C-alpha cells in the first residue's frame, strides 16, 4: 500500500527560491506542491533583496555590476540566467509584495542604484530592493541619526551600531530605552508583537520622544510589527515627527517573517500547495530522470510523482549539501553530482572565517538551463546552485529570487517540449 500523489511539478524547499518557483508555476496554471523539511531561510535573513553588493569592490549599481560579473564569471549563477531575467524577476517580486497580504507594504529600489543600509553593527550594506520600513536608513540621506535599543533585546547594541556609523561619517548617537517588557530574553519578534498594539506603540513613542533631538532620524531594530508594518511605520513616524527606519536584527528576522508570509500567501492564492515537515527521504529514477520523491509524513512515507522537480533545498547552511566527517561532500536530498568541490590536494578551507572559502562555491552541478547534471528534469534554484559566495558578494536574495523565477520558466518549457525555453 503506498500513498502516491501526482503533480505537474514538485518544488523541494520553502525558502525564497522555492516559494518563488512554486508561486510562478502555480500562476502559470501548473498543479504544484512545495515540500519542505521546515521553514526556510526567510526567517533568518534581513529580507532586503541584495542582488550584487561586492565584486569584489563595493558595487554602486547592481545592474551594471551584473553585466561585468556575467562577462568575467561564466560559471556564476547570474551568468546562467542573464541580467535581463534578474530585472524581470525583481519587477515581479515588487508587484507580488504590493498585491500581498500586508496592506500598503512595499519594496523599493532598483538595479541602477544600490542602497546602503546600516546593519546591526553599523556597517553599511548594499541592497537593490528594500522594504519601505528600512528605506529611511539609506546612508546618503542619513545626516543625523539616533539608534534606539533596549536592554531587553540583548543581541542589539545601539552604541556599537552608532559608533560604527560615526566612523562612516554619519552623525550618530545611541539611546537605550527601558521598554519594561516582562521577559528578560525578548527578541525582535516579541517586540514586533507589541508594536502591532496601538496602545503600546503610543506609550513607546511618548517615551522615546523625550530622548530625541531635532532633525534626527530614528533607527530601530527591525520590529515594526508583523500584521501591518506599513501602518505601524506611518504611525510611529507621525508620532515622532521624523523619519524612522528598521535595522535588521539577529534571527528571528521580523522583515523575513513578513517576506515569508507574502510569498506563502502568493503561492496559496495561485492554488499551489505547501507541505511543511515534509523532508524528502528518498527518490526514484528512470535513467536520467527523477520520477518521484518520498517524504516522511506521520506514520508512513508519501510519494510525490511529477514530470519535473525544482531543487531549492539550500546549501551547506540548510544541511542539504553536506561535508561529512570522512570529508565526503554530497547532496543529501537527491544525491546529485556536485560542482566546485576542491580536489583532494587543494585547500578546502582558509584560515580566516570570512575569507573566500573554497568550499563555499560548492553546489549541485547544472547546465545552462539550471538543470541538474545527470537528472535532466530537476531544475536547481537558490543556494543549492554552485559558483557563488553570497555572503561575500551580497547576492543571496538576488540569486534566490531570479533562479526561482527562472526554474519555473524551465519547468514550464520542459512540459511543452516543442516550445523554446522562454
Amino acid at each position, binding site marked *: *500500500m503506498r500513498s502516491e500523489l501526482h503533480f505537474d511539478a514538485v518544488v523541494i524547499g520553502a525558502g525564497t527560491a522555492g516559494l518563488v518557483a512554486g508561486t510562478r508555476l502555480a500562476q502559470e496554471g501548473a498543479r504544484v506542491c512545495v515540500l519542505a523539511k*521546515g521553514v526556510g531561510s526567510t*526567517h533568518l535573513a534581513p529580507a532586503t533583496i541584495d542582488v550584487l553588493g561586492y565584486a569584489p569592490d563595493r558595487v554602486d549599481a547592481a545592474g551594471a555590476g551584473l553585466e561585468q560579473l556575467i562577462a568575467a564569471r561564466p560559471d556564476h549563477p547570474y551568468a546562467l540566467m542573464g541580467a535581463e531575467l534578474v530585472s524581470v524577476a525583481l519587477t515581479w517580486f515588487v508587484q507580488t509584495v504590493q498585491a500581498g497580504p500586508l496592506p500598503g507594504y512595499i519594496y523599493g529600489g532598483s538595479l541602477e542604484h544600490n542602497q546602503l543600509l546600516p546593519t546591526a553593527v553599523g556597517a553599511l550594506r548594499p541592497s537593490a530592493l528594500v522594504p519601505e520600513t528600512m528605506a529611511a536608513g539609506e546612508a546618503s540621506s542619513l545626516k543625523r541619526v539616533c539608534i534606539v535599543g533596549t536592554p531587553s533585546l540583548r543581541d542589539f547594541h545601539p552604541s556599537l551600531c552608532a559608533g560604527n556609523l560615526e566612523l562612516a561619517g554619519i552623525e550618530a548617537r545611541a539611546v537605550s530605552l527601558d521598554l519594561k517588557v*516582562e521577559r528578560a530574553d525578548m527578541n525582535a519578534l516579541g517586540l514586533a508583537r507589541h508594536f502591532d498594539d496601538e496602545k503600546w506603540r503610543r506609550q513607546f513613542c511618548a517615551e522615546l520622544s523625550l530622548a530625541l533631538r531635532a532633525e534626527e532620524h530614528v533607527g530601530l531594530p527591525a520590529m515594526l510589527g508583523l500584521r501591518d508594518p506599513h501602518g505601524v511605520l506611518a504611525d510611529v513616524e507621525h508620532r515622532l515627527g521624523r523619519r524612522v527606519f528598521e535595522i535588521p536584527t539577529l534571527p528571528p528576522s521580523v522583515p523575513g517573517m513578513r517576506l515569508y508570509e507574502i510569498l506563502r500567501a502568493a503561492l496559496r492564492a495561485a492554488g499551489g500547495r*505547501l507541505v511543511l515537515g515534509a523532508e524528502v527521504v528518498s527518490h526514484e529514477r528512470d535513467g536520467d530522470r527523477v520520477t518521484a520523491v518520498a517524504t516522511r*509524513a506521520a506514520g508512513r512515507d508519501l510519494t510525490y510523482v511529477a514530470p519535473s522537480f525544482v531543487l531549492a533545498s539550500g546549501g551547506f547552511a540548510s544541511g542539504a549539501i553536506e561535508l561529512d566527517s570522512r570529508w565526503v561532500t554530497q547532496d543529501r536530498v537527491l544525491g546529485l553530482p556536485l560542482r566546485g568541490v576542491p580536489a583532494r590536494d587543494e585547500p578546502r578551507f582558509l584560515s580566516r572565517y570570512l575569507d573566500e572559502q573554497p568550499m563555499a562555491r560548492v553546489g549541485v552541478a547544472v547546465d545552462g538551463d539550471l538543470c541538474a547534471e545527470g537528472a535532466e528534469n530537476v531544475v536547481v534554484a537558490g543556494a543549492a546552485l554552485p559558483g557563488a559566495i553570497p555572503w561575500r558578494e551580497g547576492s543571496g536574495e538576488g540569486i534566490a529570487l531570479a533562479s526561482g523565477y527562472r526554474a519555473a520558466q524551465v519547468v514550464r518549457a520542459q512540459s511543452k517540449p516543442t516550445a523554446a525555453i522562454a
Partner: protein
Amino acid sequence: MSPAGEGNDLFVAELLRGSLDHCVKCTICETACPVSNVTPLFPGPKYAGPQSERYRIADEPSVEWSVDYCSGCGICSQVCPQGVKIAEINAQARNKLKRDKGFPLRDRIITRPTWLGRAGTPAAPIANFTLRFKPFRVLGEKLLGVHRDAPAPKFAGRRFSRWARKRVPGDRAGGSSLTRKIVYFHGCGTEYYEPWEGQKVVEILEHNGFEVVVPKQDCCGLPLQSSGLFDEGRKVVLRLARALREHVTDEDTIIVGNATSCTLMLKREAREILSLEDDPDLKFVSERTYDICELLLELHDRGELKTDFAAINESVAYHAPCQQQGHWVGKPALDLLALIPGLEVREMNARCCGIAGTYGLKVEKYELAMSVGRDLFDQVAASGAPTVACDSETCRWQITHGTKLPSVHPIDYLHRSYGL
C-alpha cells in the same frame, strides 16, 4: 513498565535526544511557538528543548520547570529546518517533571474521555446542566483545578456506535456499490459528544463507494500522553491499535479517522513520544491510518472522489489545527473545501487556538490558552465568516468559546454539498 520497556524507553529517548545536536539555534521554532509568544512563563521551544536538554541527566531531578507550560502542540518540530525533535524532547522532559512532582488527581480524570463519556452519556441532560452550572464549575475549579470558564463539551446523550450498529449499510449511498472496505476510527469526541460528525463521515465514505466497518473502540491515549501519564497512555493506545487491527483483514484496507489529533496519535505520537516504535500492532495500524481530509483529497487527486457537489453560497473561516499540521501532509481541508462551488474559504493564519487538548482546561493555564487563541479569534472576527471549520473537536469547542461562532468539521460542508 517492565524492565524491558524501560530499556526501550531509554533507547528511543536517546534517539530523540540525539536530534538536538542538529540544533543550530536559528530560532525558527521560537517564531512559531504559540505559547512562548504570549507569555514569559514559557521561554520557548529552543530554550526548553535543545538547550535545557543538555543539562538533563537520567535519575537526577528535573532542572527546568517551565517545560510544563509547553502545550505539546508540536509546531516547533514541524517548522524546524534541521529536523530536531523539539516537541518530542519536551514531551519526555514534561513526563519526567510530572513524575518528579506527582500527578494531580485532575490530570488522571480529564485525560480519560472514555470514562467521562460513559458516565455522562446516560445522564446527559443533568451532566450538561451541571457542567454549565457556575457554582459547580467554581467547585470544580477549587477542588480539581479545572478552570470555571473552560469550554466543556456537551454530551450528545446518545452514542455514535449505537447508531452505527443499528443502521443498514449503504442506505444513504445513493446507489453506489460499496466495493472497498475501510475501517473507521471515530474516537471519543464523535462517540459521546458529536455523533453526527461520525454519521457524516460514514455517509460521505459510502457515497464514494466504501464499505465502512466500525470496530468497538476506546480512547487513543493522547490526553494521557499530553499530560505526561505515559504508562497509562501506552496501555490505552495499544488496546486501541489491537482493536483496529483485528478488522484490517487484507493488504488494501485502510483506517480513517475524523479526530485529527487522535489519528496523529496513532500515526506518529504514540510511536515516538511513548517509545512504542517496536510494537507490531501499532506500527501496522499507524502505517495505514488516514485523517479523513487527507484521504478524501488523495482520492480526489487520483480522480476517485465523487464531485457531484452542489453550490454552498457562504463564506467559512478555516483554521488548520496544530495537530492536523503534524501529519505533515499540508492542509488538505483547504483544497477539499475549494472544490465546493460558491463556498468562499478564508484561511486563518494564526498559530493555535490555545486549547491543545486538555491544556486550556487547567486552571493555571486557562488564561494563557485564551491569550494564545486571541489572534485566531480576532482573525475569525475580521474575516466576517459566520462559521469556522476546523479538523479537531477540542479546537472547535475552544474556537466557539472564544468567538461565539459555530465551529464544524470541514467534512460538514462536503456532506451538505453532496446533499446527503
